[in-house]
Structure formats: C-alpha cells, structure tokens
C-alpha cells in the first residue's frame, strides 16, 4: 500500500520527468494530472504579472492545495517563477477582509452589504459628476467591462481610470502614434526566433522570468542569441547579457536617435521597406498623437545632430557601442526583437521613446517577420485585456474606441442600446489629475469628491503621495471607497471598505502582454462575506436603478446589466444569492466582444476560451467553423486583415496603410540631480514580490526571501557617505522622505550617483519621494528618475 508521501513524490516525479522530456526533446508529452482522491485540477492564468503563465490549480475540500505549471500552456510550457508556484498561497493570508466596513467616528466598523451598497449609491446620487472609479490591470475583463459600463453608459461622467496609467500608458500612445492602433504586432514567439534580443531599460530576469528563461533556454540548446542590455543600473538580467550598455537616465532618446543617425549615414537603412510602408512625422505644440508630416530629408536633417559623440555626451553610451547597435540593425539577415517595460514607459518622454524604438525597427526593416519585432511587456495580468482592450481609461470605450469620436460613441450607444446622447464626449480625468482633484478642496477646484478603488493600492503606488493621496484623507467631504482582499494601506485609509473575492474564488478572464485572452472558472469559495468585484459594481448599478437614476436603464427601459438565463428568464444578478445562477462573465464577455471588431481586435466566443490556454487576437472564424488566432499582426503571412501587401498597417494614422517613423529630440528630464539633491532615484520591483506586496508579502516564504525594501547604492557613494552595508539611510526628495537600510553589491548595482529602491514594501513608501511629472500624451508619471539626497541616519 503506497502512503501519501510516496504518492505525492511519485506524482511529482512524473510531472518533473514529463517537463524534463519536453524541455530537452521539445516533446509534446503532457503530464497526467495528479489523481489523488479528492483533489480536482483546473486551469487558470497566474494572478501576478503580465506574462500570462497558466497554472494548474489543485483544489481539495474547498481550498487550493497545490499549484503546477500548466504543460499545455504555450506561454510557460509548464514552468513557473517563484511567485507563480506560490500563487495559491496568496489566498490564505491570515488577515483577509471578510466583512464590509464603514468608518464611523474615525474607526472602521462592520456593516451589512446592503448598507454598504446604499452608502455608495448615496454618494453617486449626491454628486454624480464628482464620483470616480479607479481600477487596475488586475481587474478581470468582465469586472473592468462592468465598471466601464457603469461609468460611461450609466453615470455618464467618464470618470474612470486605472493604475495601468502608471505602468504602460506610454506604450499605448507609442503604438497608437506609430501604427494607429494599440498593442504589439508580435508575440512571445519572437523570443524563440530572434537572433538578437535588445532589452531597453528592462529587467526580465526578475520581472518576467519565465519569458526570459525561454531565451536562456535557447542558448542552453546551443542556439546563438545575442542579448544586449541597455540599462541605467546593472541587474540580474545584465549577468546573462553579451553586452551591457549603461546609459544616463533619459539617455535612451539619444541612443535611439543615434542608431537612426548611423543607419542613415551608412546607408544601411531599409529603403525598400520605408518606401513601401512608412511615413515620417514630427511633433507639434501642443503634442498630439497625429503630429505633423515631415519629409525624409527633414528627418535626416533632424538626426544629423545625433552623432556618436553627441550621443555619448547625452547618454554615456560610447561611439563603439552605438556603432555596434547600428551594425546589428543594419544587418538585414538578423532578426531583432526589442523588449521593454517600465523603463521606457515610466518616463516624462515615454511616448517619444516608444515612438523612437518603433522607428528604429521600421527604418531598418526589422519588422513583420517572426523574431523581428518591437515588443512591450506589461506588469499586470490584464493591463492589456482589461485596460487597453476594454478601454477602462478616462477617454476610452471598449475595443479601442474613444469617447471623443462621434462615430465611436454612436457605435457604443448602439451596442449598449442607449439614447444617442447618453455617452459624454468629454474625457474624464487621467489618474494623476483624478487624484490631484480628490486631494484638493472643492472650493479650490477639487471637483472629485468620491473615488471607488478596486483591485489596487494607490496609497502606495501613486507618485508624490504627499500631494496626490495624503491630503484627501484630511479634507472634509472627500470619501474613499476601497474594494480589496487585504487591509492594504489604501483600505486602511478608506471611509468604506468592501471585502472582495480573489482570483480562483471567482470566474475570470485576463488578457496578457501578447494579446492572449485567457479564461478560468471559480474553484473555491471566497472567505466570509467577500464577494466578486463585478457583483459589487452591478449591485451598485441596480441600487441606483431602483432609486431612480435615469442612466441605469437602456432606451427600452431595461436595466443596464439585464441578464437572462438560457430559457430567456431574467436573472436578478444583483442579488448575491443569484449571482452564480448564470455565468455573468460569459454574458458580459459576449456583449463586450461585439466591440472588438471595430479595430480588428476580434475575440472568439467565450466558450472557445474555456477550452484553450488563451487565444491571441484577432481571433477569426474559419470556413470550417474553427477559430484561428493571430501571432503576427500586420503581416500578410499570418494576419487575416493584412490583405493588400506583405505588410499592411491597416489602422494607419495617415489612412494609407503606412506606419509612422517619428523624430523626437532628446530633452532634459524635469528634475536632475544638483548640489542640494545630488542622486538619481530609480524605483522598481524585485523577483519575489509583486507590485506593492499586498499579496506576496503575505506569502511567508516570499516575505522571508525578501522581507524589506532597501536602498541599493554604489559602494563608492556609500564610502563617501560613511554608510556601511545594512545601515539605515534617509532618502529625501523635494516631495518627501523616508528611512531604509542600504544594500551594497546586492541584487542590482547602480552606478555612482544613482540609488534604487523597490516599491513592494508597504512599510517603506518610496513614493513619498517620487515625482508626479508625466508624459504630455500618455499622462504616465516618471518613477525611474528624480533627484534625491541621501544621508546616514543619525545614531542616537
């Protein structure tokens, strides 16, 4: 008789052996799911980053008891990172929120759900114009869609924006201004095919480890892949790279212009590609996504300034290194993938640097073939699926439509069956502006008086917290509502706290960085009275409907979230006891996917995603009735909408199927070190933790592995300051200060004059110091560079 331990070991060995065979032989063998009595397995995408790994979730007795990499998943091929294989434990922190709480006399006290929903309805009805929702790229697609519909179709003020504004908005504006439509043309397959991987200000070895391991794995099989790290500090990624090129903060603009300069000077640009597929553009004042046409000769003249010597002066990258990059781009035989994430996006010139990197690829013809692609990554599991595709931003509508376009509003009103004038043409406030107004008294222009936060932690993730968040907690009349799973810093500062279900405690859908839409089913019950965010939104909408808010009905008088069962009988999904009588996700998704065809982001029916480990849009129905995903957009060889030429940019800004190659000059950052504040501060993440650590810090092994934030500092700087490893320093900017220990020769090594602090630790709020200056188009703040001073904490 086999004992339980032996059984677990045997099944683990079967899993490991299958994975080893698949990795070594590229075998398609799949491990059998563990068949222990009482354990059921189902698929779900990981809850953490934007990679979109699939896990197999083992459930027993209503609890998640095991996690395995999903060997059927193309994204991760059965592998997981340290966060991924602990994702199940994120549900089981000891302090889950289990009851609605209302602040009374300064103290959060339990109330009923009915009372909580009434409180929110009261706030909306008291001042609909001042009510906003602040969401995130961790919303599931149906959750984001419901919130979007409540605000845009119901309340009608467009006051909704997500935390994704803080992480990838500049990538969006870069794609829009270059191709006329958002999201990468390529996909993760490019990582398997590229000859050169150029990493722009990104640390995938820690932030997207499963993707990075795909590339490292190719090397272990003897394939030649050149890895180049363009970075402002040495990271774990640097250790794997063939070349690491350190550049001065903001110097990336000069580097991209320098590559283009050399391509033109040497004549190694791809004239045929450019002639067929590209136009040239320069910016206007004020800047717009359309810009202004320029000729090739004007473009060449503008780039003349960016000689290797000038680029070295502006960026610190040597002429030899710049020449090497130009050599690579000038070689048409190579396949080059550029990869970036926050380094290029959290940038006051974020749109510009995104445009320039796309431009280098277009100018050199490194586009449209597998492995030849400029590809941005995202940091949240559904920044693409929910924020960018559902359009949960202040100016967005689902499917890439925008409120400022008359035709788009008309299309949305038709799908939602609304009166033509219901959707406002005026965008709401972007994130920084929303919070600035929430933290400003009404008589001084602070016209946002209620924010409902779902699935994010702005009390730690907003920049310049002393300006954007803290004042709101002291201004009479400002009311903060938070839906979350744990007592985060934001929840603890809120006036009303709503306990939420999390991940596999509810049905869900995510969309990852490569346009892959993923689906999962509820597997375990949420604790106590915790409920789905989507239900919370619909319950508020219904309460507003019942109290006479005119926006909660369509033009036929039906409730905005009218749902019927398969027999056509209406289901009161606002009643929690009835919420799972139907699949609300499926209902909302089927409505949402009608939007997806306007911008050729076609989504398949919900049921197709149930069977798949995600599908990459556009997903187009074939004559035989099957649904086919698309790996390489705009390329005739793969994209069904590219029909006129080998490459067709069918959403071109210039309406001629051409992409735009932009010129943007290098400009100084808004704040640079000086005598008073002599250090650059860069912020970011670490392998073990995700975002503000509200989940991963509650997983004991991750918390033990990386228990506290720290200040990475160059040893020479430490010596000058008289600081030893582990000693506490005070970091201070013009906006705020904090204390934390120094780590020398730690995870990363900043150059002299730079310090790095991760933001995962709620007890050490580095965003007290960061800058809320933002890109003029994407409105994304710069978390990667501001000026600080550092001193050793005085000893008692």
């Amino acid at each position: 008789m086999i004992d339980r331990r032996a059984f677990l070991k045997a099944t683990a060995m079967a899993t490991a052996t299958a994975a080893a065979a698949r990795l070594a032989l590229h075998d398609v063998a799949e491990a059998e799911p563990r068949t222990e009595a009482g354990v059921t397995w189902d698929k779900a995408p990981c809850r953490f980053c934007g990679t979109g790994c699939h896990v197999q979730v083992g459930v027993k007795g209503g609890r998640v008891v095991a996690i395995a990499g999903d060997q059927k998943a193309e994204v991760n091929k059965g592998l997981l990172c340290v966060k991924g294989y602990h994702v199940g434990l994120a549900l089981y922190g000891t302090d889950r929120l289990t009851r609605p709480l209302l602040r009374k006399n300064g103290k959060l006290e339990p109330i009923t759900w009915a009372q909580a929903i009434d409180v929110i309805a009261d706030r909306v009805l008291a001042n609909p114009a001042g009510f906003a929702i602040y969401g995130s790229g961790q919303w599931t697609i149906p959750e984001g869609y419901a919130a979007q519909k409540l605000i845009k179709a119901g309340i009608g003020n467009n006051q909704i924006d997500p935390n994704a504004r803080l992480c990838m908005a500049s990538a969006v504006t870069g794609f829009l201004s270059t191709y006329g439509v958002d999201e990468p043309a390529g996909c993760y397959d490019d990582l398997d095919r590229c000859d050169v991987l150029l990493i722009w200000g990104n640390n995938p070895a820690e932030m997207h480890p499963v993707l990075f391991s795909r590339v490292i794995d190719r090397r272990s099989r003897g394939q030649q892949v050149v890895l180049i790290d363009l970075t402002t500090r040495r990271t774990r990624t640097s250790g794997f790279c063939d070349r690491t090129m350190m550049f001065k903060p903001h110097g990336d603009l000069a580097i991209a212009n320098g590559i283009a300069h050399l391509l033109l000077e040497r004549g190694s640009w791809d004239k045929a590609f450019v002639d067929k597929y590209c136009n040239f553009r320069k910016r206007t004042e004020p800047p717009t996504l359309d810009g202004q046409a320029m000729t090739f000769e004007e473009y060449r003249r503008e780039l003349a300034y960016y000689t290797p010597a000038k680029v070295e002066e502006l960026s610190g990258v040597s002429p030899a290194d710049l020449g090497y990059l130009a050599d690579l781009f000038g070689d048409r035989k190579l396949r080059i993938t550029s990869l970036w994430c926050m380094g290029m996006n959290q940038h006051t010139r974020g749109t510009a640097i995104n445009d320039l990197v796309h431009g280098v690829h277009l100018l050199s013809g490194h586009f449209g073939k597998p492995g030849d692609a400029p590809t941005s990554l995202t940091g949240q599991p559904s920044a693409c699926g929910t924020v960018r595709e559902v359009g949960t931003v202040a100016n967005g509508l689902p499917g890439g439509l925008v409120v400022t376009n008359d035709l788009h509003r008309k299309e949305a009103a038709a799908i939602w069956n609304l009166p033509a004038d219901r959707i406002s043409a005026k965008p709401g406030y972007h994130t920084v502006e929303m919070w600035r107004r929430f933290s400003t008294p009404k008589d001084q222009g602070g016209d946002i008086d209620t924010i409902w936060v779902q699935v994010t932690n702005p009390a730690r993730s907003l920049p310049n917290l002393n300006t954007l968040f803290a004042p709101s907690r002291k201004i009479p009349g400002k009311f903060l509502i938070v839906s979350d799973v744990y007592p985060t810093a934001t929840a603890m500062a809120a006036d009303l706290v709503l306990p939420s279900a999390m991940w596999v405690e509810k049905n869900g859908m995510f969309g990852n960085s490569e346009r892959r839409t993923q689906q999962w089913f509820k597997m375990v019950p949420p604790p106590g009275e915790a409920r789905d965010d989507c239900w919370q939104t619909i319950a508020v909408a219904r309460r507003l409907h019942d109290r006479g808010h005119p926006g909660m009905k369509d033009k036929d008088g039906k409730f905005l979230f009218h749902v019927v069962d398969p027999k056509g009988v209406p289901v009161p999904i606002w009643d929690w006891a009835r919420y799972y009588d139907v699949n609300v996700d499926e209902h909302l998704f089927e409505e949402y996917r009608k939007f997806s065809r306007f911008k050729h982001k076609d989504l398949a029916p919900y049921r197709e995603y149930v069977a798949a480990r995600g599908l990459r849009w556009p997903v187009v129905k074939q004559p035989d009735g099957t649904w086919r995903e698309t790996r390489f957009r705009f390329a005739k060889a793969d994209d069904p909408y590219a029909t006129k030429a080998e490459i067709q940019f069918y959403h071109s800004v210039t309406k001629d199927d051409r992409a735009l190659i932009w010129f943007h000059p290098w400009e100084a950052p808004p704040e640079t070190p000086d005598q008073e504040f002599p250090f650059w501060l860069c912020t970011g993440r670490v392998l073990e933790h995700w975002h503000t650590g509200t989940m991963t810090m509650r997983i004991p092994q991750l918390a033990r592995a990386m228990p506290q934030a720290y200040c990475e500092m160059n040893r020479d700087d430490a010596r000058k300051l008289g600081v030893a490893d582990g000693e506490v320093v005070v970091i201070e900017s013009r906006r705020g200060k904090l204390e934390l220990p120094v780590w020398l020769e730690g995870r990363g090594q900043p150059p002299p004059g730079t310090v790095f602090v991760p933001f995962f630790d709620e007890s050490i709020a580095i965003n007290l110091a960061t800058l809320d200056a933002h890109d003029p188009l994407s409105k994304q703040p710069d978390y990667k560079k501001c000026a600080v001073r550092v001193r050793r904490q005085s000893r008692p």
Partner: protein
Amino acid sequence: MVVSALVLLLSPEPERRARVLVDLAADPRLTLGTLVRDRLPVVAEAASAGDGAALCDELATCDGVVRVDVVAIDFEEHA
C-alpha cells in the same frame, strides 16, 4: 512537508555534470529521476515551503547546475 517537482538544467561539461550528479544523489532531501539529455527531473522534500524555496536557491548555486525550474509544488499541509 512540501513536495516540489523540479527540473535541473545541468552543465554540458561531462566532469562537472558527473560531479554534481554524485552530490545531488547524496542529498537526502532529493530524489533524482532519469536524466533526459541535459535535464534532470528531481523531487525535493522540505519541512516547509520556505525551506523548499531555500533548497531551490541552494541547488541553483551548485557547480554543475545551470538553472533550476520549478514545475509543481504541493503545499496542502500549509494551505
């Protein structure tokens, strides 16, 4: 008890690979599977999930181990 399924990518150098295989086989926390080219399936047992993570880190630093991939973890007793 936490049981993890791991795949170790071993060094292509025969001597280093042979050495590390001997060391790994002697570790009572590990059960080794059959080498598939350069990939070694391993089952690791640890008293807690934290110890399991530490063991993975330790394996990753062994001379002859190029990388450690975790493909499954069972933490039922800790959930």
